[in-house]
């Protein structure tokens, strides 16, 4: 993998990287720090990627590991609720409802939801990224859909899981 390929693949996934990082870190600055560390780590370990087709899976996995690592290093005294949410002031009211519904989901439901429905990863790859059995991912997605429907009281997900 050369620098040009790496750069192009990262840029193509910028939005996805932001969604994952902000879900864990809850602030733009911390999300940027996490992504920076993840990219440097990924570049350093680029030889470990066996199949270029799995670049997204591999990079997302590294980013999640880095986010968890950063969260562990964060002061436990700061409750997540006390951290101002990124960009909230710029969001329309409708989107805020969505955001609030999503924010009520535990990360173990939110991340597979984002990876599967927004980033389009098949369940098998979500399982690989999250180091979970496929069955667990399916049940978490099902639970996540149910929770989101409860909160929004409308049909958000009409498609069956793959």
């Amino acid at each position: 993998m050369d620098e040009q390929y790496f750069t192009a693949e990262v840029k193509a996934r910028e939005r996805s990287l932001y969604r994952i990082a902000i879900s864990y870190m809850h602030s733009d600055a911390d999300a940027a720090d996490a992504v920076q560390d993840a990219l440097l780590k990924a570049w350093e370990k680029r030889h470990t990627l066996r199949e270029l087709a799995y670049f997204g899976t591999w990079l997302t996995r590294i980013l999640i590991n880095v986010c968890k690592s950063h969260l562990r290093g964060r002061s436990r005294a700061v409750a997540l609720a006390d951290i101002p949410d990124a960009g909230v002031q710029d969001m329309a009211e409708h989107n805020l409802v969505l955001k609030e519904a999503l924010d009520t989901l535990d990360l173990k439901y939110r991340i597979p939801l984002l990876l599967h429905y927004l980033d389009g990863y098949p369940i098998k790859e979500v399982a690989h990224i999250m180091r979970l059995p496929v069955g667990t991912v399916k049940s978490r997605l099902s639970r996540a859909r149910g929770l989101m429907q409860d909160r929004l009281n409308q049909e958000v997900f009409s498609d069956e899981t793959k």
Partner: protein
Amino acid sequence: MKRNDLDRAFPETPQAFSERIDQTLRRIKEEKPVKKITLKAVLVAALITLLAAGAAYALVSLGQEWYFNTRFTAYQEHEPEKHKAIMDNLITDITQKNTGEAAKLVDIQVQDASWAKEQKVLTLSYAAILQNPDEYEMYALWELDQDGSWTPQLDPDDPDSRTEHWLFTHHGYGIPKDVMKDPAKRLLLIDPMREVYIGQTDVAMPMWMSDILTSPDGPVICLQEFDLKQLEDAEIRKDYEGRTEPVGWSKAEGGDYQQYLKDEETRLLKRAADMRAAITANTDKEGFLHLRMPYELWFYDLEKNDLDRSVTGEITFKVKSPE
């Protein structure tokens, strides 16, 4: 509401976030490989020459033609001129020898080389084969714990952390003795040290990328690419022209940005001068550039599931400079 509406639950990607990604990607481009080489012991006392000059090579089927057409196809798809230049300049008749303690256990050879002058790129591929496959099984060190989840002590906050080493093989990813072809054999892990030095100097060639994998049939294959533009002052200066301070640049951490650029440019220009001098001094009358690549071979303790000890080796070879 469609599923993609979910994206609206997130704010627009902040400009500063995008800038930070750009800044990080530029930093990646500027940095040279960081791995430091530390030879553990001096052991050249019993050099064993395994290959005579001009030895033909048997594993070219897993050389660069295979690599750039099968495993890594980005050049073929996105930089066809570079791909063609690499293919057009491939040579397999390479004078080389493998020496050191590790050479008693593994036969590592340069399979082929391509010095594409017009594209300013040099590529090399290696294959490492066990001398005694009945006793040993070998993989690349990179294939151990490649997911980064191994930690010396279990982290209760991280469900992914583990204290057992895992190895990636064609039988799966897990504890080495569970995924080896034959766990009754001893396990060796080879680590090409990622730098290729010019002659006997400590000046390294400008590595651009490398890749390593164990093929299904056993040989460990390594590919290296060198960016020869890094030998030219004009190319280095061009790379630093017209840069503006990126959003999010931290003066506290990085100092004045223009000074940072100047320092980096100076460092790379000096490195280029050192490389050019070393290349001139180590190119023989016939126009062959002499190179060497150290490597390390680790013994693995399957009972303890841990690295045991290592021995080192070095492959020296020469490639013809283009006219």
